[in-house]
């Protein structure tokens, strides 16, 4: 039986900053194009999580008048701090000694989820059709092998895949060009990169996990516009990562921690490192007596240009972090993601109107300011594989003296899942117990994400080999899924590997870090997953 199908000029998968920018730009260039966006979250913004200190360059190009159109981009960065933390000490790094990419004085502290909600309104005004709650679950191909479009997931299946009373067959969306903007480690993007060999000749992609909380604090603790980053404690010198602390509007602080997923110790728990980080004397004082109001986590791209795959294939484009356009040293990806969306839209118009080959997208992207900035940032992350101290020294030389123009490119040698060392070779880590005021457990945290998945549906975290976790991963690595998952989806109970998939917040860390690549994240039934507010 054939599924119902709808025809569009352009179908976009994912209503994040890149996808929404593409849609808006397409309609600005040609109002007659039919454009639709599929979004797995129950509403636009529900699955968006980001720091976020926002550089407006791409937004200026997309909607020059955004200041008068009510864009939720309001809190200017007014002050910056960078701290190196020891266990009880902190050393403030003079901001004039920071590489210029880490300076933020023209930027804004925003909620990216709110910016996406606003962009969605702008897109809908232009006639873009946005369908939240409909995950694209399958790529469709034409006979010649080119991408034909996507299909939405069947809804109303039970655990075993049988049809329930509410069963609703998925439908096909066909497009002249399909744009994949699922964000970091998109599950369709991953399939496309493999099928079309897009990563050939590139370094393995590098990822990090970002955890974020929003706190409401007292007026005395709050300094609107303050942007603060830290490196060092509680991470050891071999682990790449650090914190961000952004003082936003309404006495809120956006607080987060990013850890490179190339960490070696299977006992490391990113969630608990984040909780422990808050207990540092120079951090604690900002939050004591305050209230944590949101929690979430999401994997992010750290590979840069060395790992950036080919961004086009017959009939489709990869944009934003579905390809991997985040600028790691800058700790920003929204502006480059949006720029890739702008370039994608211009290229699609040329493709549809003048039959230009989709390869012009990559060519144009490489000529853009976004690529230039990624290129000059390329050596920072790999230099930290030599450890924190050497990484900092090298980055100083590379970014301050040479401004990213050193005549060589360092490589990322391993994929993140290859970085773990056997548990027997690594020290166990004892994390302090949460106090329920400043530090919390996973259970109370997942509650704040509002995540939910209809109970009786197929498990969306699939094991290639269901016996592997107990037989191999538990023995060799003490099953790190128990720790790298920020919301406790994976548990070992009485020699059994339990997957609490209803708690999943779609961060994709398991899909990345599982040492044997045994876990595959697929899209669950529409509307499932977190319900983030102003993350």
């Amino acid at each position, binding site marked *: 039986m054939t599924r119902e199908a709808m025809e569009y000029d352009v179908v976009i998968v994912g209503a994040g900053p890149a996808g929404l920018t593409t849609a808006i730009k397409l309609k600005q260039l040609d109002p007659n194009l039919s454009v639709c966006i599929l979004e797995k979250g129950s509403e636009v913004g529900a699955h968006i999580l980001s720091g976020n200190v926002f550089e407006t360059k791409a937004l200026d190009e997309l909607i020059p008048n955004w200041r008068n159109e009510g864009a939720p981009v309001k809190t200017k960065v007014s002050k910056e701090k960078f701290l190196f933390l020891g266990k009880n000490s902190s050393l403030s790094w003079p901001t004039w000694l920071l590489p210029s990419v880490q300076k933020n004085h023209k930027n804004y502290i925003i909620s990216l989820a709110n910016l996406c909600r606003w962009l969605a309104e702008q897109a809908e005004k232009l006639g873009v059709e946005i369908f939240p709650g409909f995950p694209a679950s399958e790529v469709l191909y034409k006979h010649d092998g080119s991408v034909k479009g996507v299909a939405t997931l069947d809804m109303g299946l039970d655990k075993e895949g049988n049809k329930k009373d509410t069963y609703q067959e998925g439908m096909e969306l066909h497009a002249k060009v399909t744009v994949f903007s699922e964000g970091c480690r998109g599950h369709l993007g991953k399939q496309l990169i493999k099928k079309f060999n897009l990563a050939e000749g590139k370094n393995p992609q590098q990822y990090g996990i970002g955890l974020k909380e929003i706190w409401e604090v007292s007026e005395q603790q709050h300094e609107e516009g303050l942007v603060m980053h830290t490196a060092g404690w509680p991470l050891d010198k071999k682990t790449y990562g650090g914190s961000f602390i952004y003082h936003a509007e309404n006495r809120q602080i956006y607080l987060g921690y990013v850890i490179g997923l190339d960490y070696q110790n299977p006992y490391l728990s990113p969630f608990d490192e984040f909780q422990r980080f808050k207990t540092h004397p120079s951090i604690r004082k900002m939050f004591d007596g305050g209230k944590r109001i949101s929690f979430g986590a999401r994997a992010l791209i750290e590979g840069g240009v060395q790992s950036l795959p080919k961004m086009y294939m017959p009939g489709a484009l990869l944009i934003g972090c579905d390809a991997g356009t985040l600028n790691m040293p800058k700790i920003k990806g929204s502006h480059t993601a949006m720029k890739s969306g702008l370039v994608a839209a211009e290229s699609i118009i040329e493709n549809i109107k003048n039959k230009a080959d989709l390869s012009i997208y990559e060519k144009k992207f490489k000529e853009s300011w976004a690529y230039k900035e990624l290129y000059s940032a390329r050596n920072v992350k790999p230099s930290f594989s030599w450890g924190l101290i050497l990484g900092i020294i090298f980055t100083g030389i590379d970014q301050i003296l040479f401004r990213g123009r050193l005549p060589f490119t360092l490589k990322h040698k391993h994929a993140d899942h290859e970085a773990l060392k056997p548990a027997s070779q690594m020290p166990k880590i004892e994390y302090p117990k949460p106090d329920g005021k400043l530090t919390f457990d996973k259970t109370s945290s997942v509650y704040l994400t509002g995540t939910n998945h209809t109970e009786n549906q197929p498990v969306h975290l699939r094991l290639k080999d269901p016996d592997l976790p107990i037989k191999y991963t538990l023995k060799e690595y003490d099953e790190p899924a128990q720790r790298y998952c920020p919301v406790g989806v994976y548990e070992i109970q009485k020699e059994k590997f339990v997957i609490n998939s209803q708690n999943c917040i779609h961060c994709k860390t398991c899909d990345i870090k599982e040492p044997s690549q045994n876990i595959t994240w697929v899209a669950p039934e529409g509307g499932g997953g977190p319900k983030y*507010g102003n993350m």
Partner: protein
Amino acid sequence: MKILVAVKRVVDYNVQIRVKEDGSGVHTDNVKMSTNPPDDNAVEESVKLKEAGKVKEVVAISVGEDKAQETIRKALAVGADKGIHVKADNYIEPLGIAKILKKIVDKEKPDMVFLGKQAIDDDCNQTGQMLAAMLNWPQATFASKVNLKDKSIEIIREIDEGLETVEVNLPAIVTCDLRLNQPRFASLPNIMKAKKKPMEQIDAKNIGVDLTNRIQQLKVEEPPKRKAGIKVASVAELVSKLKNEAKVI
């Protein structure tokens, strides 16, 4: 036959509610909103009756700010034929909503009004009952099963003692329980079609009823935090604690 079905836009049931610091209410900015769950059951049942050929038209109505139209569109996407949006920016108590609904009933002349048993935001559980009184129609509340006959409707209600079957003459008010049915998903083509279905818009101020709220809300606050539990060593200790500390046995 014709059914008027009332739907309300509320904070999604998965969202953890946050009380405003000044105690004036709860935060709703950038919070995911959805149709009140039992209202989904009311819509589903109306559409089922229509599909069974027993009902000809289903009209969905919502009272609220502009975004309440999204809630109406969702009802249209799963099978309602027409929408009515009564625009009101402020909170209106169940009494005011019932008055508005009565006016709409006078105009639309449905044979039945289906509502959710209560809304999950204020938990009032009053609108259906008040509307029945104003219209002087019979009411059947907490329906967990519905059987529509020629001139009456039989419903089963889940009550403390078991199941109660009542039959009321039409026209009637039916309020729906969560176990009545399993609401369907809206399909993409139906969401598209719903955008083209008619939606009437009326300003609540022009409806000609007194909407003054009668209840003054003094303060909204979070319930006290639950104390952590303790582990007891033996049954004897548990019994003694239940007797002497908790004083429940």
